[in-house]
């Protein structure tokens, strides 16, 4: 077991509001972790602290054995340069895709390798082709983002993150902005990545996906990990009342198995 990511005592407050309250988490290479919880529980903030889109108020984050930041007198300071370097090693996919509208699909995917990693033109192109192929959109390479469906845009955003060949991938509600019929293609792409051994930390409301794909499910409430374990124990046999209530809310209206033959 190789530990890729270690989070210790992570705190985050915005002014008086405490959003994360002592998160500890260890993620092994190849593990898929799904984070669930009500809105406001801190799950997105936790994800955003991992690649320092938000700067933690306290605690320590260690990626592949190297602790991020310089600790002195009980607080940790971060240099912009270190954080920029760290973000290049961590992939992130956003709820709203955030593709670069002035670039073609292929240019979007090449941008990181080209501008940040300073790869050669040949290498940039090779990576773009490879990862666009992986998300099934090689044929859209020369389109502009505005010409794609939401699901396709999100798959391009995944390819853009993969092109950096990151050590871990973060998904922040990657399907929440999509029309229901487009959710499946993005989740399938994510599942393929998980099956190939990518280390992933996923915030989602798709409990069925969590059940199928996660190695471990975390339930967050009030900035704390309230319950965690394999999907069966957290999603099917929850122990905490808060987890039960959350799942009850999600299961209020449910289809019996539709007959799709």
């Amino acid at each position, binding site marked *: 077991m190789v530990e890729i990511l270690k989070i210790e005592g992570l705190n985050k407050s915005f002014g008086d509001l405490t959003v994360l309250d002592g998160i500890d988490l260890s993620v092994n290479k190849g593990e898929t972790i799904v984070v669930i919880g009500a809105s406001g529980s801190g799950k997105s903030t936790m994800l955003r602290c991992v690649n320092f*889109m938000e700067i933690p108020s306290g605690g320590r984050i260690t990626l592949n054995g190297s602790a991020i930041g310089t600790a002195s007198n009980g607080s940790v300071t971060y240099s912009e340069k270190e954080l920029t370097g760290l973000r290049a090693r961590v992939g992130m996919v956003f709820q709203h895709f955030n593709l670069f509208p002035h670039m073609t699909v292929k240019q979007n995917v090449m941008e990181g390798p080209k501008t940040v990693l300073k790869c050669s033109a040949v290498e940039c192109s090779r990576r773009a082709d490879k990862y666009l192929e992986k998300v099934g959109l090689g044929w859209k390479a020369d389109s502009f983002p*505005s010409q794609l469906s939401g699901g396709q845009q999100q798959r391009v955003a995944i390819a853009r993150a993969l092109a950096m060949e990151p050590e871990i991938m973060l998904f922040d509600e990657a399907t929440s902005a999509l029309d229901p019929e487009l959710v499946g293609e993005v989740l399938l792409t994510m599942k393929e990545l998980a099956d190939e051994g990518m280390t992933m930390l996923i915030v989602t409301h798709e409990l069925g996906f969590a059940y199928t794909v996660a190695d471990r499910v975390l339930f967050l409430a009030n900035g704390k990990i309230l319950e965690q374990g394999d999907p069966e124990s957290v999603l099917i046999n929850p122990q905490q009342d808060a987890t039960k209530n959350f799942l009850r809310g999600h299961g209020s209206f449910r289809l019996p198995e539709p007959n799709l033959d």
Partner: protein
Amino acid sequence: MGYEWDFGVVLRDFDLLLWGLVNTLKVTGLSLLFGVPLGLFLALWRLYGGRLIRVPVGVLIEFLRTTPPIAQLFWFFFAMPILLGIEIDPFQASVLTFSLQSSAFFAEVFRGGIVSIDNGQWEAAKAIGMDRNASLRRIILPQAVKRMVPAFLERAIELMKTTTLVGTISYADLLYEANNIAQSTYRSLEVFSLAAGMYFVVIFACSMGVRRLERHLGRTGETTTG
């Protein structure tokens, strides 16, 4: 009202008007050349500079925007030699004044363009490891500039019209020449009609060109959904 138009006497001096137009374009062109990049820097300093930079730059921009251009022109023309001992000719004073004056307006155009870009674009750039400079250069400015084209054109036209003030310090621009010809030929109506027509042709042609450019830019994708 039987006014008899007579362009003949005016057209004899048409070459003077053309030279005046060339001078107008020289001042306008150079002021754009210096004013646009300076405007970009002012905008970036105002947006991202530390307090010690942000505040004075803001004051400078507001000052340049709110004082009459003719006062600025006189100030640079007359004050520079007195205060700094630097002799400048009317041409230099004109370019200096209008570069600075237009940079303040361009700074506001740039700033408006930059802040209009969705924060998600910054985040996406940041998430693939770009620093602020790279994000600005590769992601934010290319999109912002595209949106700013109409405002740029508006400012450039405004600038060209404002340069008519340079005649007051005896720089021989189009309007200055027109004035001279009017005084020597007593054909004010003809000569100013002609001068106005020349301004119109140049500005209208530029604005058509920019409109075509805009259509061309508009063909590449605009916004992502969501």
